[in-house]
Each structure stands twice: as structure tokens, then as C-alpha cells.
């Protein structure tokens, strides 16, 4: 097992390097160099840089040097936790991103748990009660979850909440907590607001998960060993829960690797609609204003999150299914 985990972690290294290259490409993508943009912006605000400052900045960002040198310069900063400076905000990127990224992680993880908690029982129910009314209802909800884009669900939630109940469902905190630091009250308040993003984000994933669980479990239930178990007189409960369900649960773990990128991406869009204080709105703004160090760092962070999610899912799969470990 130890060997397996080490191997998986080593596999991560090339992926991580590729991820940093992609992020750097994102930083370099906009036409023109950012220093010119920066100087122009400063000039608009009535500030001027003298030659010495300009030279210092040029050296700092490695302008005029080949692209791989600039990449290595940026990387050496990243490794030390220095992600560059946001042109728009005039602050180090790390400072801006920190808390928002944390909230994104919290929401993504909570949504994963929500998806598991909802999809598992429903999937098992749908498979064991195939073609029942419940099965049809859940299948219908599943199709809706697959077909309706997340931001539409968010908009519909907002609209229904406002027009029927007169409440504002956007945001993650009540007004009195927005500006405050973290406290017990703020956490409780956040939990109270979190159900809307959870449902909106989780619906698509839940739908997919229900379908896979149902299909997998149905396949398992048709296998001869289940018939054997029945013919030997095992109770129905034991027949279903002892082996088929366990085998049908694999997608819950392996799906994590694909679930996380979807959640991170999905939360980017719905947090704009629901105005959540997560990374989404800031990322969008950074792209709109071509604040590329901020944007590139976001891409890097999102990708690293995903890579870590894949690692966790691989390790969990190894724990669950010994065959994978010895592949």
C-alpha cells in the first residue's frame, strides 16, 4: 500500500509541472506585455514611474528575456509562495486569493458530501425498485439535473425565492457578518446560507451519480452470485448489501477525480450568479481586467486542487479495491 501511494505521488509530479506551464501560458496570453499595461494604468491615475523604477520592474518580471527564463522566474516565486502582484488591486496575489480559495474548497467538499449522501441511497433504491414510481420520479429529476445548466438552476432559485417568499437567497453571509472576521456566529450563519449553493451545485453531480449507481447495481444484481445467494436462503437485505452494493460503490470514489474539476468549475459560474464570496467572481473580474497574475494563479490553484482530488481518489480506490494496488 505504501509503495502504491508513493508511486501515485510521483505520478503527480509531471502533471503538476504541466499545470504550472498551462497557468503560465494563461498569464502570457493577452497581447502586449503587462508592464506596459501597468504603466499606462498608473499614468491614468496620475502616477509616473521614473526610469530606475521601470528598470527594476523589468528585471523583476524578466521582460525582454526569453520565455523560459520568465517561466522559471515565476516558478521560483511560486515555490516560495510568491505568486506575483495583482495589477488591479496592487496587492500580492496570495493575499487576495487565500480566503476565497478556502471558501471554494469548503463549498466543493461540502457539495461532494451532499452528492454522496443523496445519490447513494437514491441510486440503491432506484436499482432495487426498478420501474417503480419512485424510480421514475428520480430518473426524471436526474434528467433535469443533467440537462439544466447550473446557472439556470441558480437563477430559478433566486427568482422563486424572491417572487414567492420575498427572500434574497444570494450571498453566503448575512449582512452583519460580511465585514466581520471569523467567529462561531459567522460559521453558523454561513451554514444557514450554504444550502442554496449546495443544492444548485450538487444537482448535476447527484443526477449523474444516481444514474451510474443505478446502472452498476443493476448489472451486479443480474450476476449469478446474487442468484446463488438468494437460492441459499439469504435475506434480501443481506443479499443486496453484502456484495452488490459494495461493488456498485466504486464510482463514488473513482468519480471524485472528475467530480472535483466539475465542482470547482461549476462553482465559478454559480458564485457569480449567487454573488458568493468565493474565488469565482474575483477570477472572472481578473479575466475581464486582464489582471493576469491573479488569473494565472487561480488557474494554477484550481488545477492543483483537482490534482490533489485525483490523488485522494486514487488512494481511496487502492484502499477499497486491492486489485488496483497491484496493477
Amino acid at each position, binding site marked *: 500500500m505504501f509503495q502504491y501511494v508513493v508511486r501515485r505521488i510521483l505520478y503527480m509530479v*509531471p*502533471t503538476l509541472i*504541466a*499545470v504550472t506551464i*498551462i497557468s503560465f501560458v*494563461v498569464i502570457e*496570453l*493577452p*497581447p502586449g506585455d503587462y508592464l506596459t499595461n501597468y504603466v499606462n494604468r498608473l499614468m491614468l491615475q496620475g502616477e509616473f514611474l521614473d526610469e530606475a523604477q521601470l528598470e527594476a520592474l523589468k528585471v523583476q518580471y524578466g521582460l525582454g528575456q526569453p520565455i523560459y527564463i520568465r517561466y522559471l522566474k515565476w516558478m521560483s516565486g511560486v515555490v516560495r509562495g510568491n505568486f506575483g502582484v495583482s495589477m488591479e488591486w496592487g496587492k500580492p496575489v496570495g493575499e487576495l486569493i487565500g480566503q476565497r480559495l478556502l471558501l471554494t474548497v469548503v463549498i466543493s467538499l461540502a457539495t461532494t458530501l451532499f452528492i454522496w449522501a443523496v445519490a447513494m441511497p437514491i441510486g440503491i433504491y432506484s436499482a432495487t425498485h426498478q*420501474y417503480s414510481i419512485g424510480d421514475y420520479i428520480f430518473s426524471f429529476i436526474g*434528467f*433535469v439535473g*443533467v*440537462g*439544466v*445548466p447550473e*446557472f*439556470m438552476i441558480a*437563477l*430559478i432559485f*433566486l*427568482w422563486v425565492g*424572491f*417572487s414567492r417568499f420575498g427572500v*434574497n437567497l*444570494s450571498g453566503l453571509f448575512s449582512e452583519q457578518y460580511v465585514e466581520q472576521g471569523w467567529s462561531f456566529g459567522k460559521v453558523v450563519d454561513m451554514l444557514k446560507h450554504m444550502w442554496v449553493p449546495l443544492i444548485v451545485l450538487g444537482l448535476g453531480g447527484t443526477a449523474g451519480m444516481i444514474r451510474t449507481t443505478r446502472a452498476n447495481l443493476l448489472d451486479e444484481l443480474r450476476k449469478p452470485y446474487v442468484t446463488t445467494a438468494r437460492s441459499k436462503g439469504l435475506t434480501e437485505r443481506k443479499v443486496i448489501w453484502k456484495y452488490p452494493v459494495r461493488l456498485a460503490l466504486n464510482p463514488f470514489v473513482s468519480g471524485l*477525480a*472528475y467530480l*472535483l*474539476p*466539475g465542482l*470547482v*468549475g*461549476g462553482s*465559478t*459560474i454559480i458564485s*457569480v*450568479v449567487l*454573488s458568493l464570496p468565493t474565488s469565482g467572481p474575483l*477570477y*472572472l473580474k481578473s*479575466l*475581464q481586467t*486582464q489582471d493576469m497574475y491573479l*488569473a*494565472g494563479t*487561480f*488557474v494554477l490553484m*484550481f*488545477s492543483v*486542487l*483537482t*490534482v490533489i482530488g*485525483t490523488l485522494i481518489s486514487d488512494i481511496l480506490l487502492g484502499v477499497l479495491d486491492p486489485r488496483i494496488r497491484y496493477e
Partner: protein
Amino acid sequence: MTDEMEEKDTRVIESPVVDAQQELVDASQEDSVFVATQWQLMWWRFRKHKLAMIAGVILLLLYCIALFPEFLATYSPHESRKLFSQVPPHKVRFVDSEGKFGLRPFIYAYERTRDPDTLRLVYTPDLDAKYYLGFFVRGFDYKVLGLVASNLHLVGVKPDETGTAPEVFLMGTDNLGRDLFSRMMYGTRISLSIGLIGVAFSFLFGITLGGLSGYYGGVADLVIQRVIEFIRAVPGIPLWMALSAALPATWPPLRVYFGITVILSFLSWTGLARIVRGRFLALREEDFIMAARLAGSGEMRIIFRHMVPSFTSYIIASLTLSIPGMILGETSLSFLGLGLRPPVISWGVLLQGGQNLQAVAQTPWLMLPGIFVIVTVLAYNFLGDGLRDAADPYSR
């Protein structure tokens, strides 16, 4: 499908007469099954999938809209009206205020007042101003598919005795007083075609790279598989956003359109490549490929004459299933303001109008384009499911 079979069985047992007839039908069917081509078998199989058939018809209708938006639109989509901003949709009625029912649809013109407290414009139906809707009326000029000049439109308001006719807004108007229904019709063309063109691109990437990977194996396979794994591991939406934000703002709309399409397909060819690779790996070992090789067929002939036809159906099915993702991608990007930009009209651009709580609360009809998105995506999903089942007519 199994349901239907069981039903048939029970009926056969109940009545001996039907039984004999059934046998005859079965026999003739069996004969035709033996001589049927693979595509015929697939069609028979697909026909049984009711939902997929319905979805197919809905999609055909939607693509008709995409072909002839000018005919269906009531007004020019760019025409803005200062006096008619944020007008709610006109209700098309058959029963008038006195409870009389007529077959001819009509609308009540709106009376415009200003709310004394909020100073917002309020539109109330004027029960005295009744106007019938006419079909095949004359309106603004356009060219059918850019070729034939015409000014015929499906729906319009018929003038009353005095010759005046108000404008009808079937889906209301936006902030600039542009008719949402007409804009919807035009947006359909962009949004639906982006799915098709995007899929064509990813088909190109997917089949080439997946084919290389599966047919040659070895180092090519290893490299391509790593690349695929990597692309799948990067969260797609943020990367889409970054790439499309990098498209220069000075680009003309058409180039932006293709840029967005390439970006969307750049991240979605991986699924197809995996399927193609899998099929190639499986087929490589088949006897009929070995036979072709022994008969002296060249590599290209083996690939295109023998291998590709045997998994075309899978490819069609999986392409169909990947179109909705493209459409959703475009809609989401444009919704965020990173994709297509006005004056180009797409569903995402239209939905941008209903982006925040304020818009949702005051002008909920701006969310109507979303219904088109939902219907399209669901229809493609059902159609794709049906095609996937039909793709392998020999299963079961």
C-alpha cells in the same frame, strides 16, 4: 424495450388467432432481419426508443428555427425602442375580457403608466384595445438564407379599423426595448450551430489522435494518453474562461465565434479519442481484420474500409452526446460575458440580461431563453441515449 416484448408474449398466449398471425409477422420480420443492412437494423432499434424519436423531432424543429429565424422573428432583432423598454410578454389570448371565446388569437395592447412611488414603468393590458394576430404578414425585409429577398413573417399584429397596430412582444422586451422573441429566433442560429461546428472540430482531433493512439500503440499511445489524462484533469470551465478572455477584443464577431468554438472543442475531444482508441484496440484483434491483412490490404484500406465503418455508429452516438456540452459551454461563457459579445446574438448573450437578483426580480421573462437551452440539452441527451442503444443492434 423488454417491457414491450413481455407484453407481446402475454397477448400471444391469450389468443390463439393472434398467435398464428403473430407467427406469420415474426417469420416475415425474421426474413427481413437477415437481409437488412446494419443501418436498417439500427433504425428499427432506434424507432422503438420513443423518447429519442420525440427528441429527434424537437431538434429538427429547433434547427428549422436556426435556418429561418428571419421568417419567424416578428421584428428586426437589433431594433431598440426607447419607449418600450422592459415590456412584459404579451399574452396571446383566445378568450376576451367578457368571456367570449374565439378561434382567432388576439392580444390587448399595453397601457403605459409610471408607478408614482418607484418611478418604474408599469404596463397594464388595455381591455379596449383588442388586436388580432395575423399569420403570414408583411414586415421588415430580409433574405432567406442570404439568397432570396422577402418580407413575409409568420406572425404579426393586424391593424384595426383605424389602421393602427401596436407592436407585439411575444417574450417581452429587454432594457433597450428590443423584442426578445425575435432575438431568441436569431440567437438559435448561433447557439445551435456552435454545437455542430464544435463537434466537427473535436471529431477531427478525436478521431485522428484516438486512431493514432489505438492503432499504433507504443510511444504514441503513451504520450497521447498522458495528454488526454492531463486535459481531463484540468478543470474545464476556468480554463475555457481564461482562453476565451484572451481572445482579442478587436477581433470581428465571426472570428470570435470560431475562436470560441475551437476553445470548446479543444477540451472536449478527449472523450471521443478515448472511445476511438478503445474500439481500435478491440478491433485490431478481430478475425476479419486479420483476414483483410492476409488478403494483402494496405494499412489505410484496413483502417478506412474495415475498421472505421464498424464503429461509425458509436462515434455518431458519442458525438451527439457531446453536443449539449458544447452548447452549454457557449451559453455559460457568453452568460459570463467572456464568450460571444453583442451585437452577436446567442442564447448566452440573451441570458446575460438576467444575471442578477435585481433583473430576475423585475424582468423574469429575460430568463425565457433558458427554456430553449434546457429543451435542447435534454433533447440531445435523449437522442444520444437512443442512438447509443441503437448503435449496437446485435446486443441483447
